[in-house]
């Protein structure tokens, strides 16, 4: 899932200068799970903004709405008719989909979108995938060296691994230590003998914004005509 954290409130307040109608838009998907932008956080933001408006005489008309997934236009019809500013508690993807669908709205981010990761424990979320576009975790015991090694080494560990920890931060486990242990558990340490060659970075961010087309799902000519999408 996509990991995000709440933006500091003073930043949000600054972005709302000059606003009148403010809609706080929560998302029940990723940002709800990482406790940054779900219904609960959207309601809290609505109350905080309303209170600020009352205290400072801003005259904001603040409301809140939470949708199933802000990154899919099918779920965004409840926003129709809203004018003014949207504080998006969804990830950066959701915020941009909302902005694209409703160009006249002013969309401001209520969260900082960080990475693709997973919950490690209560309230702890850790990056797990860098979205490099060329997955090789079958060679590395299911552990991504791009996302989880600070240096993104394909053939590790480096000399900075001490006691199973990364030299970048003692809180970060050495990904390659975990890979070695994982391969040992699987009885596949022979994989460590093979050199993983330099990777093709073109499917990664290096190639600019990426576009994936599922040829089966993408509409053909008749479907496009029926949907009026020519």
């Amino acid at each position: 899932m996509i990991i995000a954290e709440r933006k500091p409130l003073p930043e949000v307040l600054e972005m709302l200068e000059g606003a009148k109608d403010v809609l706080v838009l929560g998302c029940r998907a990723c940002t709800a799970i990482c406790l940054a932008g779900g219904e609960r956080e959207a309601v809290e933001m609505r109350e905080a903004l309303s209170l600020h408006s009352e205290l400072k005489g801003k005259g904001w008309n603040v409301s809140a709405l939470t949708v199933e997934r802000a990154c899919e236009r099918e779920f965004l019809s409840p926003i129709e008719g809203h004018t003014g500013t949207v504080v998006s508690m969804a990830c950066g993807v959701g915020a941009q989909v909302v902005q694209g669908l409703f160009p006249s709205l002013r969309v401001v981010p209520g969260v900082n979108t960080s990475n693709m990761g997973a919950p490690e424990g209560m309230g702890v979320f850790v990056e797990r995938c860098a979205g490099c576009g060329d997955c090789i975790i079958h060679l590395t015991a299911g552990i991504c060296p791009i996302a989880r090694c600070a240096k993104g080494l394909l053939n590790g560990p480096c000399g900075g691994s001490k006691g199973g920890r990364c030299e970048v931060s003692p809180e970060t486990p050495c990904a390659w230590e975990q890979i070695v242990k994982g391969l040992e558990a699987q009885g596949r340490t022979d994989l460590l003998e093979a050199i993983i060659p330099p990777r093709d970075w073109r499917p990664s961010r290096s190639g600019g914004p990426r576009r994936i087309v599922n040829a089966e799902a993408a509409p053909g000519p008749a479907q496009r005509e029926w949907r009026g999408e020519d």
Partner: protein
Amino acid sequence: MIVCYCCARSGMPAALRAMEDGGLDDVLLREVPCTGAVEPGEVLRSFRQGADGVLLVGCLLENCAHHYGSEVASRRAARLSQVMSDIGSVPGKVAMVHLAEHQADRFRRAVEGVRKANGQEEGR
């Protein structure tokens, strides 16, 4: 008015004892199953509905019936206090007190602390 979200097991009995002695006419008690269950939005809404301060009244940290509910509430109160500060109010308007059901005095002192944060006179 100071809205007190009181844990049914510890906070509420302590608050009721304190109320018997008078001087807490500005206190509104709301019973909750655990202070850890108090929603942040609910706390902020209390201010919009006229509260001058909000006090979470929960179990002693080592004695929470829900194990860590009052610990969660304590962190939440600290964060909401910061939120109040961020939106232009004064710090200390949201506070947490940990007590056992017989500690009515501790409840009274916590209310006084919130009053002071609001610049109110003691015993208003």
